[in-house]
């Protein structure tokens, strides 16, 4: 039995490294896609986004504010405009992501105790640049507004400390844990890479059993596997798990250090969690491959099943904001459970026991899919065996 299992493992490795529909997906694509994703976000943060200034005040104060806005990381003043029409036109032409409007007599009104409204316009159909421009612009303008209030209180003879306490009675101290700089590369790349990995595993394993039947090579391995469905499934699983380790090494040993994406958490714990994802994906692929004899159909099912994993997992848009039926559907994909654990083990550097509920979910995938695969393959082998002996 041990020799049979070893034969299947070695044979599957040979298949993986010799068939283009296997090695292109499992060996050639991963480094290309992983590095591609990392390069997209190599700047890590969007900076110097073009914005316009609509200055109707034209005073020292408005110039000072302009200078402060230009100093922020996200904004770069590229246009001076004079009307709302011009502002909207530039946005429609895609030339600016935002604009700030200083109204007429702004400085004068502030000095004469009349409140003024400074408007910040963003192109909110471009969400990321729009949010960055708003965050930086509002920070500058609120600080400037607070400065005006502070000066007024100080002028009344109040001590600067007390004036500051009135300007900002509640000082909000924000601590952003686990990605304090809102680095897009650190946030998105690990998620995109792992979602690509689950897709790669499933898209190849869906061909593990059906191609053997279709190409007539199953008869070659049946005697070696002692006509045991379990031996075939376990042997192929070990082979694919081994290849997934190569990609894990590529991810944590090459990509993460090269792009400085390595986190505080234990790599070994991440490896354990990754193995549960790999096994769940192999199980799903094996189940599809056992049930769908047509390889193109199996590939289509694999594609349809894996491609929405990223959006359903809640990585960029939280699951609680999705309709209830989508929340349930998300649970039908192993990547969802993996991602919850991945956040804790990789992003937050927490011990593996925090990921226990998600590991249990992945174990459920593994149990069900492998059982179905072995059961149906066993039935088919029994039929063949009975026919052959008859």
């Amino acid at each position, binding site marked *: 039995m041990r020799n049979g299992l070893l034969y299947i493992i070695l044979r599957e490795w040979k298949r993986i490294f010799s068939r283009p529909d296997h090695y*292109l997906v499992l060996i050639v694509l991963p480094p290309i896609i992983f590095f591609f994703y990392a390069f997209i976000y190599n700047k890590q943060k969007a900076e110097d986004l073009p914005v316009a200034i609509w200055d109707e005040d034209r005073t020292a104060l408005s110039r000072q504010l302009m200078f402060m806005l230009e100093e922020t990381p996200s904004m770069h003043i590229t246009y001076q405009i004079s009307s709302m029409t011009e502002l909207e036109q530039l946005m429609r032409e895609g030339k600016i992501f935002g604009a700030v409007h200083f109204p007429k007599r702004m400085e004068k009104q502030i000095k004469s105790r009349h409140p003024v409204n400074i408007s910040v316009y963003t192109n*909110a159909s471009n*969400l990321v640049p729009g949010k960055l421009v708003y965050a930086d612009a509002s920070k500058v303008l609120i600080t400037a507004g607070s400065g005006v209030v502070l000066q007024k209180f100080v002028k009344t003879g109040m001590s600067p400390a007390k004036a500051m306490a009135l300007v900002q*009675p509640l000082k909000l101290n924000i601590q952003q844990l686990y990605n304090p700089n809102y680095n897009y590369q650190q946030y998105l790349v690990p998620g995109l890479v792992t979602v*690509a990995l689950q897709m790669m595993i499933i898209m190849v394993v869906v061909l593990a059993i059906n191609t053997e039947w279709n190409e007539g090579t199953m008869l070659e391995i049946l005697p070696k596997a002692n006509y045991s469905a379990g031996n075939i499934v376990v042997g192929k699983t070990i082979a694919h798990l081994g290849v997934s380790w190569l990609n894990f090494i590529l991810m944590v040993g090459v990509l993460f250090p090269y792009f400085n994406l390595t986190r505080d958490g234990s790599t070994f714990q991440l490896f354990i969690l990754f193995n549960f994802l790999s096994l769940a994906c192999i199980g799903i692929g094996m189940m599809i491959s056992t049930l769908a004899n047509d390889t*193109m159909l199996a590939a289509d099912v694999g594609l349809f099943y894996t491609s929405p994993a990223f959006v359903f997992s809640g990585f960029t*848009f939280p699951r609680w904001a999705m309709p209830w039926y989508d929340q349930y559907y998300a649970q039908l994909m192993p990547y969802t459970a993996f991602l919850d654990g991945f956040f804790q083990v990789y992003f937050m550097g927490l011990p593996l026991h925090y990921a226990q509920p998600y590991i249990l979910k992945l174990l459920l995938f593994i149990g069900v899919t492998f059982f179905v695969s072995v059961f149906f393959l066993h039935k088919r082998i029994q039929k063949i065996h009975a026919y052959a002996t008859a």
Partner: protein
Amino acid sequence: MQPPRTRNHTTWRLLLREVQMIAKDHSLLLTLLIAPLLYAFFYGSIYMNKAEEKVPLDIVDNDRTGLSRTYIQQINNMQMVQVNQFTNLETAMENMRTGKTQGFLMIEKNMERKVMSLQQSTVTLVVNAAKFLPSSDLMQAITTATLTVGAGVRLQYNLKQGYNNDIALQETQPANVDFHPLFNSGVNYGTFLLPGLLALILQQTLLIGLAGGTAAERQKHTFYDWLQVANGNYSLALWGKGLFYFVLFAVYGYFFMNVNYSVLNLDRMGSSFQLSILIALFILTLIPMAMWIGMLFKSQLLCTQMMAFSTYPIFLITGYTWPISELPKGLQLITALLPTTPFINVYTAIVQQNASMIERMPAVVHLCVLWLFYTVLCIWKMHRLAKAGSSSLIVLHEK
């Protein structure tokens, strides 16, 4: 040069040939007829609610006074925040670690006393920034609530100084920031993402299906039959086969822009006529591109596998989610070769910003250039394959 009548007849024969080929191939049927509609509703439904609400937050209230209760009430009134529980620091930290909350707010002891005696009090907001959207929404909501409470404190102070209500209010906040998010007034994630997502579904199902179908021509050795039906005219072969996809995906485009937009409550601001022209131009560019990609493969399965992995990379570099100017120079070149880049640029401007094609003319020209580029590339590849095929036939014949 064929007379127009013969050309029309050949085009019709190529179209019928394509319909028969798809009808026999259930993988193509699935990709071309079922997947576009299913994906459009399936993916679309995720963002149906448009924005997240009620981000769970714990409160560690070490003050427990009237002011801290007012502050918490202010936070609780916000749609974006859902106060999970009032607890101690350890439990709040643990709740964030286990994912029950996205952060916690810690109010220091003696906050009210400090504020009343004109001393600044510190409140600490801890957020899990591993997830961008909930943490940034929490920060924005809590900052607003804190500024509002701060303004309330100043108002009370001004009233105590003897100012009347109006003056006190003016003195409280001499410079206000008015936020005007244009073209997506709710700054919703769904409103932002859905138009692009629908365009991507239209593109990827066409690319995967047509490239797969073209690869199948090579795999099943029907490539020369295809050229033969087109009387050896490459252009006719391209557009005769492509006509079916043009009609089918134009119908999908119309369906997405009307039915899906309506179901998902999306505004379509610009001109329907210009949008139709743009979508037609986009499909016309994708058709030769897909055929060219398909001709690079001898196996339908391999082609489908490779195309499956193109979806996310294409979407991420077209400038929709991440500005093109922020991409490395090499990637900007690849981006320029994708029809999605100029299409998304003009399409979002039309549907979300009420812009016209003239306002985005450089992108329209870019798309036209890509149409020409992929047409030439596709015809060149056809010519090469036909030449390679005829030379191998001669070799076989000579043998």
